[in-house]
């Protein structure tokens, strides 16, 4: 069942906001998508990765692009609780009351980014635990409701300490962030330089109401069709020894519901099970989960959360969705006039996409969405060389016809 018009508009605005944010980064869309998913679910996200991989920058951009109160802090071994939760109110103390000044501090934040979270002291983590779990900040007799939508935490690595691991389990989604690939270094330098030369580039802020409405809408998503497959996946993961707490399994449904909503579905289906991968809080186990669940994830489809869905599943179906979504956007961006100088580069981009589609699928295996897209590309490129020659399977013939060599390393 499709979404109502209002919700559809909210999803569309969220999608364009995501595109806008993504243009400020290289290879970080999946991370941005997961942070946004966390905000819609009102759940917390843990980013694990080496320093300098854009974790802080992504959260800062996300916070700057939202009309919400944000709080950011780099935690160290000697960080005092007051640095996060506010110092004591001396006037209140004179009256015999122990109250912190929480203005602009974590207890009043709607989105929080805590770097090096596992370096926090027991006092910090205990107070934080209550905010994360119960949205309540308590200090002695003082207690207040915390309006926190989502906390995004970062660390270089997962803790070995079982107590800290239990704390880490409060973060529903975990993403392992790696440095970008060698092939993207050129783009990283270009985009990085643009940040120096044009630092004021900011996207139009997204209203808090949009997040709130989407959160409420996600709680109305019908999960009845995914209950059985979700339980099956959980049994499969537990049988393989993947540790997943009951709490996480229950809350995981929120991720499925939010993914379905952003995909434009009021009823969640097998296309929306992929966020399960990010429930697994171990890098090796996470990639193992995406592999062993290939069959369960084969119908994955999400036109908004394209990169995180692809990262969660790594499958051909997700890749097809990614290409189809790119194609739709590209065709929609057609210059109005054929005399427009942008027309030529647009046609070249269409041809590039055609190459990418043919690289991924043989003509016989082309998914329906890409079949239509490819036909559309062909019609736009009509008259060009690409359109004139029909699709051919990716050739292994060239290699197969080469006679075997005695050594595997034959220089040409």
């Amino acid at each position, binding site marked *: 069942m499709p979404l109502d018009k209002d919700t559809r508009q909210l999803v569309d605005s969220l999608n364009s906001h995501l595109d806008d944010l993504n243009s400020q980064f290289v290879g970080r869309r999946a991370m941005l998508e997961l942070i946004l998913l966390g905000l819609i679910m009102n759940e917390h996200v843990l980013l694990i990765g080496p320093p300098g991989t854009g974790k802080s920058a992504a959260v800062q951009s996300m916070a700057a692009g939202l009309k919400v109160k944000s709080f950011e802090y780099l935690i160290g071994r000697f960080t005092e609780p007051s640095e996060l939760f506010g110092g004591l109110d001396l006037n209140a103390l004179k009256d015999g009351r122990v109250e912190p000044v929480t203005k602009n501090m974590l207890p009043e934040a709607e989105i929080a980014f805590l770097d090096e979270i596992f370096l926090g002291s027991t006092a910090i983590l205990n107070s934080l635990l209550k905010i994360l779990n119960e949205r309540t900040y308590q200090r002695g007799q003082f207690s207040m409701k915390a309006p926190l939508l989502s906390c995004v935490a970062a660390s270089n690595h997962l803790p070995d300490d079982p107590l800290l691991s239990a704390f880490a389990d409060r973060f529903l989604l975990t993403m392992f962030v790696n440095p970008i690939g060698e092939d*993207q270094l050129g783009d990283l330098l270009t985009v990085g330089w643009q940040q120096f030369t044009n630092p004021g580039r900011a996207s139009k802020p997204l209203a808090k109401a949009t997040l709130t409405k989407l959160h409420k809408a996600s709680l109305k998503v019908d999960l009845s069709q995914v209950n059985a497959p979700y339980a099956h996946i959980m049994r499969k993961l537990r049988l393989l020894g993947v540790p997943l707490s009951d709490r996480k399994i229950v809350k995981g449904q929120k991720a499925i519901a939010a993914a379905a909503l952003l995909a434009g579905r009021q009823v969640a289906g097998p296309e929306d099970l992929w966020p399960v991968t990010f429930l697994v809080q171990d890098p090796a186990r996470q990639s193992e989960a995406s592999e062993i669940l290939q069959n369960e994830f084969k119908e994955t489809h999400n036109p908004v959360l394209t990169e995180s869905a692809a990262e969660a599943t790594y499958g051909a179906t997700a890749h097809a969705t990614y290409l189809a979504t790119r194609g739709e956007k590209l065709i929609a961006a057609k210059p109005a006039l054929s005399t427009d100088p942008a027309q030529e580069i647009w046609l070249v981009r269409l041809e590039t996409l055609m190459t990418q589609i043919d690289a991924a699928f043989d003509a016989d295996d082309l998914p329906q969405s890409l079949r239509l897209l490819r036909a559309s590309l062909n019609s736009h490129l009509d008259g060009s060389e690409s359109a004139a020659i029909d699709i051919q399977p990716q050739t292994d013939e060239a290699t197969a016809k080469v006679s075997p060599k005695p050594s595997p390393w034959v220089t*040409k």
Partner: protein
Amino acid sequence: MAWRRTDRIQMPGALFVKAPEIDPAHYIGLLQNKSIFFAELPVAQGLDWLVVFGAGSKDDALLLPHIPGATPIYQALPDCWFPVGTALDMPETVQVSYVSASLEQHNLTRLEVVIIPEFGDENTAHNIDVYAIRDQVMLGDILAEGPAL
């Protein structure tokens, strides 16, 4: 040591064209006249092969022509290109060291290479062809007659 087939989910960054299945010279002429953007693509050529590299590496900004029958390749390791849908069948942590050591044995250090495994009908391959890229030029700077085939 083996190469294995994978899902073809890697984004191609270049196209490998080999005679006699495809005539590289034909495509050089065709692409040169097709768009000024294609004329600026880097290419490398050997006796009977041609690699057309995409311009720009970000997926949504990459420019790559459509050459039916060409083998799409992706940069799997630094300076090392594999066909889309193939990977080294060994842990990722040792792949760079293995390929570096193997290239060194054949005096191919500090060169970019295209590795084409010979799969035949199997899903794994033990034999490969290596094409060493010594020079890259702009496609527009090559004479339309193309490489000597």
